[in-house]
């Protein structure tokens, strides 16, 4: 039954396709590493090029898939080095990645995240090879009610992020959800908080949001650090550059767990790398953060979102290849590429065009190895970014922010908005807020409202639909357990030990 894969490797290992996989991986890493320019742009830019160059379908797809997976690798770099997420999936990577860099461990952090990305992606590609048709059936069982329950679960697991200042974490999350309310209401078409500005109809764009919150506020904070002698915020000299085997082994279960979580979230249509990163990070914090060092530069805190976002990227191929339904914005663009070549995605693709389906999957394996080989040894080189003087780094971040937002919107309003959000982010950070809850609230809150209201549209207002199916019921129970157990367990345990005594 794996004939298609063997054929696929034959296709993918031809010199042209191998070269394209390599090129795609390189370009993708670059697209991913540049904040504001993500895999969608990379693919949208290269797709017409591949088509005009007259590449055969499987070669074009191999190139584009390389860009996609490469971008997920690249996104982590600026997260770790600059505290600015390179793309949507890498937001959670800043939480522990950047503190590690501040400890002088940028090299190992880059290396470890490359390994995590590799493990996560590998889990997902194997899952894709073995279970794609089966998973596709499960994925469509997720309707609005199930997604709403999933969001409840995600918010419940966020409770773990409360940390030392629960009020500010909660305020951050609420503000994030409120920002997600801006724009056309997806149910009724009513405009909310747009103040008559057409630029706000589609809501506040994710890229504008993360570039503003992270990049612009980072520029302002860098200025403060440059002007203060007392603060210990100066970057320490770069320590060792390679990640040690011990560190990788320390994170092995994290990678496996989060790779699996990321894959499942990626398979579901409508949720992608950003949700995968969030869910895996909070789950991992709950499972393995016994000393409370997540957020201060914990290796596992870095490995978790990185394994998950790469797994999600590969996972989103499942609904695309088996059902012809895009699982993410990026696969939607890839689907468009397939249509240009007159290829029908779906189960038929495996029998009718095995060289395309097999070639694509094989190229994912190959691209992943190429990316690891590319990223591990170069970690030390990339870490050198930290030694770039601020007077070069800051203008560089500004250029990337402006060019990235401008090419997405061709509109100055988006840039003004980015600057306003930047000031807002700076103030929040000065006031002791963490930015992650804001982003999580923004990503999950919109999905939560939409899916609640979709579910109720289906049932005509009957709330019973929200826990009707086994999947949603299970998610509700899991959410309740997440909230109750940490509070209940210690009590039960102490009672037990008391009884024993």
């Amino acid at each position, binding site marked *: 039954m794996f004939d298609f894969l063997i054929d696929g490797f034959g296709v993918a290992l031809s010199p042209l396709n191998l070269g394209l996989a390599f090129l795609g991986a390189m370009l993708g890493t670059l697209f991913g590493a540049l904040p504001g320019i993500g895999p969608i742009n990379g693919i949208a830019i290269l797709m017409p090029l591949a088509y005009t160059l007259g590449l055969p379908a499987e070669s074009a797809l191999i190139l584009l898939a390389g860009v996609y997976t490469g971008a997920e690798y690249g996104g982590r770099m600026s997260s770790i080095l600059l505290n600015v997420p390179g793309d949507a999936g890498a937001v959670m990577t800043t939480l522990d990645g950047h503190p590690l860099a501040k400890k002088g461990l940028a090299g190992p952090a880059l290396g470890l995240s490359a390994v995590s990305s590799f493990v996560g992606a590998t889990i997902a590609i194997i899952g894709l090879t073995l279970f794609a048709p089966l998973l596709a059936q499960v994925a469509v069982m997720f309707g609005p009610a199930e997604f709403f329950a999933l969001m409840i679960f995600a918010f419940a697991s966020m409770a773990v992020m409360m940390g030392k200042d629960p*009020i500010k974490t909660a305020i951050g999350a609420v503000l994030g959800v409120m920002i997600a309310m801006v724009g056309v209401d997806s149910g009724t078409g009513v405009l909310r908080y747009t103040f008559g500005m057409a630029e706000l109809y589609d809501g506040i764009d994710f890229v504008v949001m993360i570039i503003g919150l992270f990049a612009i506020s980072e520029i302002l904070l860098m200025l403060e650090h440059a002007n203060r002698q007392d603060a210990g915020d100066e970057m320490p000299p770069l320590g060792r550059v390679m990640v040690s085997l011990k560190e990788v082994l320390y994170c092995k279960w994290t990678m496996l767990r989060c790779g699996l979580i990321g894959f499942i979230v990626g398979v579901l249509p409508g949720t992608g790398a950003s949700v995968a990163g969030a869910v895996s990070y909070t789950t991992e914090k709950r499972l393995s953060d016994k000393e409370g060092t997540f957020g201060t530069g914990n290796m596992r805190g870095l490995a978790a979102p990185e394994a998950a976002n790469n797994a999600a990227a590969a996972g989103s191929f499942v609904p695309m290849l088996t059902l012809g339904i895009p699982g993410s914005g990026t696969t939607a663009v890839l689907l468009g590429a397939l249509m240009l070549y007159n290829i029908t995605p779906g189960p038929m693709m495996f029998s009718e065009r095995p060289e395309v389906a097999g070639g694509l999957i094989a190229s994912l394996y190959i691209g992943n190895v190429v990316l690891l080989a590319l990223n591990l040894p170069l970690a030390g080189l990339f870490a050198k970014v930290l030694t770039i003087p601020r*007077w070069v780094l800051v203008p560089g971040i*500004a250029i990337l922010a402006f*060019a990235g937002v401008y090419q997405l919107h061709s509109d100055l309003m988006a840039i003004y908005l980015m600057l306003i959000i930047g000031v807002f982010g700076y103030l929040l950070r000065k*006031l002791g807020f963490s930015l992650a809850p804001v982003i999580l609230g923004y990503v999950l809150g919109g999905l939560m409202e939409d899916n609640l209201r979709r579910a109720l549209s289906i049932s005509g*207002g009957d709330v019973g639909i929200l826990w009707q199916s086994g999947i949603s019921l299970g998610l509700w129970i899991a959410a309740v357990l997440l909230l109750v157990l940490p509070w209940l367990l210690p009590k039960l345990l102490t009672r037990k030990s008391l009884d024993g005594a």
Partner: protein
Amino acid sequence: MKLAADRILGLALIGLAAFAAAQAANLQIPFSYEPVGPKAFPIVLSVVLAALSLVLVFRPGENGHWPDKALALKLLAVLGVLLVYALLFTRLGFIVTTFFAVLALARLFEATWLKALIAAVLMSLGSFYLFTQGLGISLPGGYWLPDFT
């Protein structure tokens, strides 16, 4: 006066919550297929936000250091540079505005004039050609360009 910042923030957020709730309450909805509608979420969130902010007003937490006057002026200068960069971005085009933005930012981050000039020339041209030629991304050429071809 460390604690005052959180109090001010709390009051400001209560104001924001009131504004957001009032905005949502005034939405004109032609019709909706479900009972929740577009008003419920914003209003509930506003209430939650106001409640949380109230806690903040009465039990403020720790804040970082606030910049002194000289630093605050510098911060405003950086923001000013970025704002002017944005204002002129399409009008004068990417290369010219980026040149001046890099020059100003590098100076604000204490580079010498020579270093800043070199950075400005290299970064404005380099990034323009990386984006437009290397990555196929379109950037503003500037509205004055068509005048002299």
